[in-house]
């Protein structure tokens, strides 16, 4: 029976690059997929594009392509296994990303590669002011603070690009598992309403989409859950058959571990109701999934199912939402906790005295209560040797946000004894909310860059 080998080359925009190169070289892959778009990445990329029309794609696109395109070219030679690359690194500008990939192929002297861009996710021009966002605001209320609106496309556009024989396919917003479902749909010829198979293929995509998070990344807890060689963590690949059953593995000799525990953590990651994992392609059902180890670092995944896809597509809307001002300072040695607590009180009082205007504020002690609050934080026993005060506030006005960090910094000469390492920062808030559009309103389009 024909099988497909699909590898995962990135779990987020800034991810390690060598594990992707290792997969491209030694994974005997048919497809290498890079998933690089977090919730607000496109909004940030759109801001970059506003200042420079060719910008707006992933900052590591060029380096990743420089490293893996030689293997795509190798796969086009007689007797070699063909390798194709799929990625959402196009972010806010897939067409410019496709041109950059062509430029790099030319620079490397690689000939005959076809690069395709998939667009259609950008629906900013289609929104109307009355539409409501999930946070209760309307599109109209955002006014000129609105930056971007991108629909989560499904596998469809990528399948079309594969059918015109593209070697590299670059997209903007596509649902993460759909990047991996597309080559399965294309190669196995599954019907677009074969919900069972689409559910299975979506499980495989979901397991692979965070790369190292299934091969032992984000898992190690020394003495409880040990993972070998995290510095050389291998990224995962799935060998899938035409029924949508898969074995998850990694390149032999790479670091990390794959077993039922790592697979289960990743299967439930970012899932709410396991019976209804919504994607643009299918309503996947992971409730019956089970894993079995068939060899060291090889796990069979089975039992996913599916039902009809949602009638609407989710749209992420990026908008400007004021500024966050922040300041930090550390206290150490005996009495550090009491001095940090005093410093916190002083800053809070100073913000009142000087009338700093903010919408929301947090003043917390890193090492004590910053992650889980005072109640859970006080479960620790003993005095911490060092404590870091952190004050952060969201302000409508940038000038007000600047004053937050300043009031922390002035603790140097006006606050308690022994403060050090003060830092301050101000950043603009690029927030993301979502809305739903009927799927008929969104049409994916495929653009081919000329092969050379």
């Amino acid at each position, binding site marked *: 029976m024909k099988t497909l080998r699909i590898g995962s080359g990135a779990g987020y925009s800034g991810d390690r690059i060598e594990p992707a190169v290792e997969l491209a070289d030694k994974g005997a892959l048919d497809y290498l997929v890079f998933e690089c778009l977090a919730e607000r990445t496109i909004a940030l990329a759109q801001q970059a594009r506003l200042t420079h029309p060719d910008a707006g794609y992933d900052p590591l696109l060029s380096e990743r392509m420089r490293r893996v395109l030689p293997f795509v070219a190798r796969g086009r030679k007689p007797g070699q296994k063909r390798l194709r690359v799929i990625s959402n690194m196009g972010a806010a500008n897939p067409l410019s990303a496709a041109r950059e990939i062509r430029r790099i192929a030319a620079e490397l002297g690689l000939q005959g590669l076809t690069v395709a861009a998939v667009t259609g996710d950008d629906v900013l021009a289609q929104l109307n002011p009355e539409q409501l966002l999930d946070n209760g605001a309307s599109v109209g209320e955002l006014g000129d603070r609105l930056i971007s609106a991108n629909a989560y496309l499904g596998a469809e556009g990528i399948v079309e690009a594969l059918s015109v024989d593209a070697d590299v396919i670059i997209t903007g917003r596509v649902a993460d598992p759909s990047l991996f479902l597309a080559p399965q749909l294309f190669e196995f010829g599954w019907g677009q309403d074969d919900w069972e198979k689409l559910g299975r293929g979506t499980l495989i995509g979901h397991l692979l989409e965070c790369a190292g998070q299934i091969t032992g990344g984000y898992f190690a807890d020394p003495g409880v859950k040990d993972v070998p060689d995290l510095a050389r963590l291998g990224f995962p690949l799935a060998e899938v058959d035409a029924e949508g059953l898969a074995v998850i593995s990694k390149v032999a000799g790479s670091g990390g571990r794959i077993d039922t*525990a790592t697979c289960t953590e990743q299967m439930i990651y*970012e899932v709410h109701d396991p019976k209804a994992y919504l994607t643009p392609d299918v309503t996947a059902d992971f409730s019956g999934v089970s894993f079995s180890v068939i060899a060291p670092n090889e796990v069979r995944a089975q039992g996913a199912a599916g039902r009809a896809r949602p009638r609407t597509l989710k749209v992420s809307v990026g908008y400007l939402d004021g500024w966050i001002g922040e300041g930090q300072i550390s206290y150490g040695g005996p009495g550090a906790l009491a001095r940090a607590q005093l410093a916190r009180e002083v800053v809070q009082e100073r913000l009142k005295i000087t009338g700093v205007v903010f919408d929301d504020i947090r003043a917390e002690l890193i090492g004590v209560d910053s992650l889980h609050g005072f109640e859970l934080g006080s*479960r620790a026993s003993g005095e911490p040797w060092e404590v870091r005060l952190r004050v952060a506030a969201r302000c409508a006005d940038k000038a007000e946000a600047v004053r937050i960090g300043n009031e922390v910094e002035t603790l140097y000469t006006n606050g308690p004894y022994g403060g050090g390492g003060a830092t301050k920062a101000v950043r603009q808030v690029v927030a993301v909310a979502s809305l739903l559009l009927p799927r008929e309103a969104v049409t994916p389009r495929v653009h081919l860059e000329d092969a050379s």
Partner: protein
Amino acid sequence: MNVVKLRELAHSRTGDKGDTSNISVIAFKAEDYPRLVEQLTVERVTAHFAGLLDPKAGAVRRYELPNVQALNFVLPGILKGGVTRSLALDAHGKALGAALLDIDV
């Protein structure tokens, strides 16, 4: 049956979507799964995170995945303002699962 910390029986991972976290709790051994189902109730998990949850955002939900000896807790509103607007140091709430492992079972 001795009372132990959840960390001795299970492992966990936290995911985020908007202002909602989901925390998986996965038994190391299948024989401990019924104990988790019985003891890790929505009420207990809600009480554990009482200082962090937003009562207006809706109730904590629990889903059972017996095939993989796991529970999945969904905690609406715990990532106040959502990942993109949050003032929190850990805006994604990635470390929440580790806090749940300190609960007694």
